[in-house]
């Protein structure tokens, strides 16, 4: 293969890869969420930190009883996180500048509009349901726990103690129970005695939140956490103190997790299909070149051998003929000599 042909093939392959990427870039970057999807609005100015939501969640999801009962509020002295036996927890945040007393915040899966866990899962064990919840399907999960690393809120957890059938555990927004008609609102929402949690359509929740901002000027920060964070979430928060002071990350930006990876991942199919074909082609051409060269070489060698053999045979024949002639001449010479001697002797005898 000529160098030029190889380079042009390489160039074509590269262009094909780039084409794949630009096609992705032209696609819709922002996903505003499924219309009519449900979510929950948490109001930190209302939460009293009674842990009823934890109890409600535990009950409707049939989770194991915690070591400390739900009416033991001393657990709030420590910052806690969700685990494989607890889908939701409430934390207390003390000494917040500008706050009259402690502020409480419930934590659970935020049910992102474009979940990082789902985008990291290579077996599609996570589903973002059009109704809002992010659910997990154990039948396909391979237990890689990429979702746990991917989630910016540290939500999916793993049953490490289950030897053969560990599950990824996280809040489901009670979607299985709600679709089955067992519940009308998530367990935590139903258990809240002060409506610090409101379940409803995400669009309505945003309106309700803004309504509270307008009704009580100065009571809330003019921001709904989760409206845009990480591309938006179905769980929303409003608060009178900065969100970072109640344990919510403010460094996440407004781009969803898939937006960071979709560009690179979009190239994978084109590389997976184009590159093998390209490389196999290059290899085949190379192989053919080798084969042809080999055949030509063999032919040339054969011809040379045959020629040499012919030449050798001719030489031999000539030598043979020469020897024969020499022999004949010698015989004739000897015969002649003998005849001459005989004649001489005859003459002498005659004499």
């Amino acid at each position, binding site marked *: 293969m000529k160098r030029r042909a190889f380079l042009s093939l390489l160039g074509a392959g590269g262009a094909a890869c780039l084409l794949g990427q630009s096609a992705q870039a032209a696609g819709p970057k922002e996903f505003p969420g499924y219309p009519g999807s*449900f979510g929950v609005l948490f109001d930190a100015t*209302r939460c*009293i*930190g*009674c842990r009823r939501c934890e109890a409600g969640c535990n009950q409707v999801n049939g989770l194991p009883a915690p070591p400390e009962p739900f*009416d033991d*509020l001393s657990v709030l*002295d*420590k*910052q*806690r*996180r969700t685990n494989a036996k607890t889908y939701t927890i409430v934390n*207390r*945040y*003390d*000494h917040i500048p500008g706050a*009259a*007393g402690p502020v409480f915040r419930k934590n659970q899966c935020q049910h992102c509009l474009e979940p990082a866990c789902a985008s990291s899962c290579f077996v599609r064990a996570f589903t973002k349901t059009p109704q809002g919840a992010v659910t997990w399907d154990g039948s396909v999960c391979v237990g890689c726990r990429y979702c746990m*690393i991917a989630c910016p809120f*540290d939500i999916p957890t793993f049953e490490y103690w289950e030897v053969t059938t560990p599950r990824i555990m996280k809040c489901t927004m009670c979607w299985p129970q709600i679709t089955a008609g067992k519940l*009308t*609102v998530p367990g935590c*929402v*139903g258990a*809240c*005695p*002060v*409506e610090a949690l*409101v*379940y*409803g359509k995400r669009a*309505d929740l945003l*309106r*309700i939140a803004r*309504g509270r901002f*307008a*009704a*009580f*000027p*100065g009571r809330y920060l003019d921001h709904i956490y989760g409206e845009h964070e990480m591309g938006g979430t179905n769980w929303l928060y409003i608060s009178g103190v900065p969100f970072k002071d109640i344990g919510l990350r403010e460094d996440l930006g407004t781009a969803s997790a898939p937006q960071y990876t979709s560009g690179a991942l979009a190239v994978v199919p084109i590389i997976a299909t184009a590159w093998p074909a390209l490389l196999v082609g290059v290899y085949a051409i190379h192989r053919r070149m080798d084969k042809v060269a080999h055949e030509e070489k063999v032919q040339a060698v054969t011809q040379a051998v045959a020629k040499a053999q012919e030449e050798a045979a001719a030489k031999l024949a000539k030598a043979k003929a020469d020897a024969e002639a020499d022999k004949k001449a010698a015989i004739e010479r000897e015969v002649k000599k003998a005849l001459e001697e005989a004649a001489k002797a005859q003459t002498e005898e005659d004499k």
Partner: protein
Amino acid sequence: MERGRPLLRWAGILLVFAAVSLMGNEVRGDAGPVKTPEPGRSDRLTIDTLAAFQKLELPPVTFFHDKHTDALLKEKKGCETCHLVEDNQLSLTFLRKKGTKPAEIKDIYHKGCIGCHMETAAAGKASGPPDGLCRSCHDAEPKVASARLPAGLEKVLHYRHVDSKSIPAKAPAKDNCAACHHEYDQKAKKIYYAKGQESNCGYCHLAKPQAGVKSLEQAAHQQCVLCHLDLANKGVKEPVPVRCDDCHGAKAQAQTAKNNRAVAAKLKDPNVLRINRGQPNATMITYDPKFEDKPVKPLLMNPVPFDHQSHEKYSDSCKVCHHASLEACGKCHTLGGSKDGKGVTFEQAMHSKTSKHSCIGCHNLQQAAPNCAGCHRSIVTARKPDDASCRACHTAVPGITGKDVLSPAQKASMAETLLKKRTPTLTTYPVEDIPEKVVIKDLMDQYKPVEMNHRQQHVQALMKGLKDSKLAQYFHGDPGTVCQGCHHNSPPSKNPPRCANCHPQAHGQALTAVEATRPGLLAAQHGQCMNCHQVMAVKPEATACTECHKERKK
């Protein structure tokens, strides 16, 4: 070596694994107990003088002024150790005169601070960081927070200065106002005293220094601290604060407040606390045509009688209302808005709900007091006020409308007559009409009904908390007003509707947009009780379920 290679590879893999799990632990681990911040110091200064001239190479220096003053005092050394005397006055800067070049400042600080630290250490005494430990002073993350509270001269403290024999009046003046108050002559570039022109320091001395005018901080330290130092050196009997903590510390401020109260309590005539600048005792708030630069449509609202003298009592300084100068409100806040008033119209200046200087804004702020907040916290402030609340201030005066232009004397006499007619009394329904006990049992499930001591612990307790508030007495005009703290959003009445009439019984339903603005019954009742108990700091706490309703065994 050939045998060693796989071993080496495994070691590498294990190392990476260990590093990843350690990192993971750190990222995902328990955050541990909530940290309580270290107590701050009121004398924490940040020295970043060079920041005005160049980009700082190192973080600014965190400096504790009182620590140094106290240490020097032990050595019988005074302020002059660090502050030069220039024109017979102690300079407020460190070891340098006016007009020192920026390039020299760095040297002055380094030689001055480190030199003294080294000398002190060489003498075998406790001392600050020596040479070479740059970050000990240039600390990017100071461990000690600043607990500096703004210091101020409220009314009684002002009176204590006026009354002090240690600050004598200079003859022929009868008072000592000239000791602090001054005006600035732009042409002569000199300060002078003008009788009757005294006003709040903050009107001229703003937060940041202006061309030729010191910032409030600079002015206050020069004026107050230097005078206090003089007095302290003279050995006067009054307490003269000179250390940072004496004015800016929480403890010292509490002590000052206590002393102020004691002084105020002893006064025979509380009117001596008034700061006399020719203000009326009462006036009618209405527009003044002399301030209006363009023809205006006369107001249709009735003018408002305003008790200026009483409002002086409620405020620490004139600045609470007269925020930029002691002029009448209408001078800057014209009917159409003016440049001086930053476009804020007369109407907005009186009614803004968000400004702390406006009538309504300040009245709303008063509602945050525990006695008021219990009810007022739940009242939507954003809604349109009802006519009765407008009429509470815009009193009808027979024969006078908003169109009429009144002279100052007319205003004063009219206001005084109108104010005299007001007899604020706090009323509610007769005792026998107030239910003694209310049993709340609409949602009985996990818990037994709540038996609430309605009359004594709620209605009468609220009334008791309001008995000293003239504001509440005046604006709670209807006997049913106090009931509306709980029985809200319906006209005041002896028989208010039940909670469940408006709040949906069903709990835990997905809410429609209309319902969502109105909580369900459970949240409505809990919200009403808990919010009030929380902001009024009345037990039981929001999470003490069984103190309100006993558990119900099913």
